[in-house]
């Protein structure tokens, strides 16, 4: 190794220090904690205390079920919407492009707390603008916060509003990296626009859409602020409690760190599974 390459360690050191202290150690630490009973002092090794409890805890299954429902509905809806938005925004026929981009991208910068507050007001049973608008076209008010399915729908709507633009930006960047002459060649070959989209655009976008899907799944899996603030701590009666919120209550309300760590590692296992699935789907394409 050349002498100058030692300089690399100098440049890396501060970053790695933070990394080791606040990521590597915690990763190990929470793994160990998940096998410890942390409700007694001092903590003792007792795998059953957390993992045993986890698999028999109806609250855990409820949170897992809610998270999965959100994932399965929200991610496909949002990615489809984001792809459509990206394709439309990319059209050369579009007028006032900047305005449309602003409309779809602006939610990306809005903080979770701010938009949670707005959605709470907008969807209020009696005074919310959404119910008022529904009433004005003859639809009865929906109890967005006291009906579990409606509350779930509200969460999905909120998260989709907040994150669709984010994915649109990524997909749009992907679209713009496809060379235009591919489409020119296809047009000369009399391939219709729809077929161009299906046979050229989608296959070329596949890796980017997969990337968005994985990011979105992992993001939605950790959903916390929205059920905490919009549906009032997973209400009604745990109807919108997600894994993230369940973990927060166990770890930081009940201060049962061991149990919370076991929940965290369950999420990690799901994330790894999804990443592997993505690798497998992605490899298939090549």
């Amino acid at each position, binding site marked *: *190794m050349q002498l100058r390459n030692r*300089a*690399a*360690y100098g*440049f*890396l050191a501060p*970053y790695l220090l*933070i990394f080791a202290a*606040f*990521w*590597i150690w*915690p990763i190990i*630490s*929470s793994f160990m904690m998940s096998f410890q009973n942390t409700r007694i002092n001092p903590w003792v090794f007792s795998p059953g205390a957390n993992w045993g409890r986890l698999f028999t805890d109806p609250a855990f299954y409820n949170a897992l079920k809610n998270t999965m429902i959100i994932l399965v509905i929200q991610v496909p809806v949002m990615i489809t919407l984001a792809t459509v*938005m990206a394709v439309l925004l990319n059209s050369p*026929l*579009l007028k006032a492009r900047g305005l*449309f*981009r*602003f*409309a*779809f*991208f*602006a*939610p990306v*910068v*809005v*903080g*979770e*707390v*701010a938009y*949670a*507050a*707005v959605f709470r*007001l*907008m969807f209020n049973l009696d*005074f919310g603008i959404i119910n*008022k*608008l529904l009433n004005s076209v003859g639809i009865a008010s929906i109890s967005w916060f006291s009906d579990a399915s409606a509350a779930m729908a509200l969460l999905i709507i909120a998260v989709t*509003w907040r994150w*669709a633009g984010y994915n649109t*930006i*990524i997909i749009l960047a*992907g679209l713009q990296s496809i060379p235009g002459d591919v489409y020119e060649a296809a047009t000369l070959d009399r391939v219709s626009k729809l077929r161009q989209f299906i046979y050229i655009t989608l296959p070329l976008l596949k890796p*980017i859409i997969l*990337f968005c899907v994985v990011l979105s799944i992992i993001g939605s*899996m950790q959903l916390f602020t929205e059920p905490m*603030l919009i549906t009032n701590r997973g209400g009604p009666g745990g109807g919108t409690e997600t894994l*993230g919120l369940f973990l*927060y209550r166990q*770890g*930081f309300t009940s201060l049962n760190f061991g149990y*919370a*760590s076991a*929940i*965290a590692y369950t999420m*990690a296992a799901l*994330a*790894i599974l*999804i990443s592997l699935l993505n690798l497998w789907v992605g490899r298939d394409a090549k």
Partner: protein
Amino acid sequence: MKSQSRSTLIRSLSLHAVLIPLALVWLFPLWMMFVFATMPDYGIFSPQIELLPSTHFIENVSNLQADTDFIRALIISIGVAITYTVLSVLLTSMAGWALARYSFVGKSLVIAIILGTITLPYFVVVIPQFIMVAREFKMANTWIALIVPPLFNSLGVLFMRQAFSMMPVELFDAARVEGVKEWQIFLRIALPLARPTMAALAIILFLASWNNYLWPLLINSRPGMMTAPVALGTLIGLTKVSWGGIMAGAVLLTAPILVIFILLQRHFIAGIAAGAVK
């Protein structure tokens, strides 16, 4: 020729027929945020459909200030976001430079671990982080607690690494031949050339810090040391609270970043799109 321009017109019209309503739906919550922030509470809770702003913004801000010390929280948020952004851009640039330019023992391991953390749920690390900072270091409710633990950032390092490795190597060789020290090459040549990338990264990091909710909620929950999102969050769900005030707070949180977004849209989009550049 004629039929072609007609079909173009039809396509253009249908494009806008889809996009305009969609854009209005997407803008609606933001619009309502500004409308609510200017309404008195009795307006927000009136049975009429109110879609236009009123004039009670200042009043709402003072209501908010009565509910929680929001101005102080804003100042903390600004300070934290700026400090965090500067430190994080510096750290990730240095690390990205090391990973782009040098070959050293353990390099591929470091890259593999950094890549691995992208998909790792944050909840896996947040519990020990909390125990370490709050219980072992007894540093809850401090600036350091807010700024330092979130400094690790994997996408930023990969982003900077990409920028540095796209620069021509001859540039740095030339400087080496001239006897310029490695850290001078980094500071005087690499960093100035990476300015656009750093700008994009800085904006994304600033946004992340500004909007960060979970970590500040856990670690700085004492009144007077809360960031603005946390302070605002404590009001949501309370009964005796001014909703106009909360909305004014939401606007105060959103408006500055929205202005930055409009002004620096290009960098913003570059930063987010870089997430896909692996």
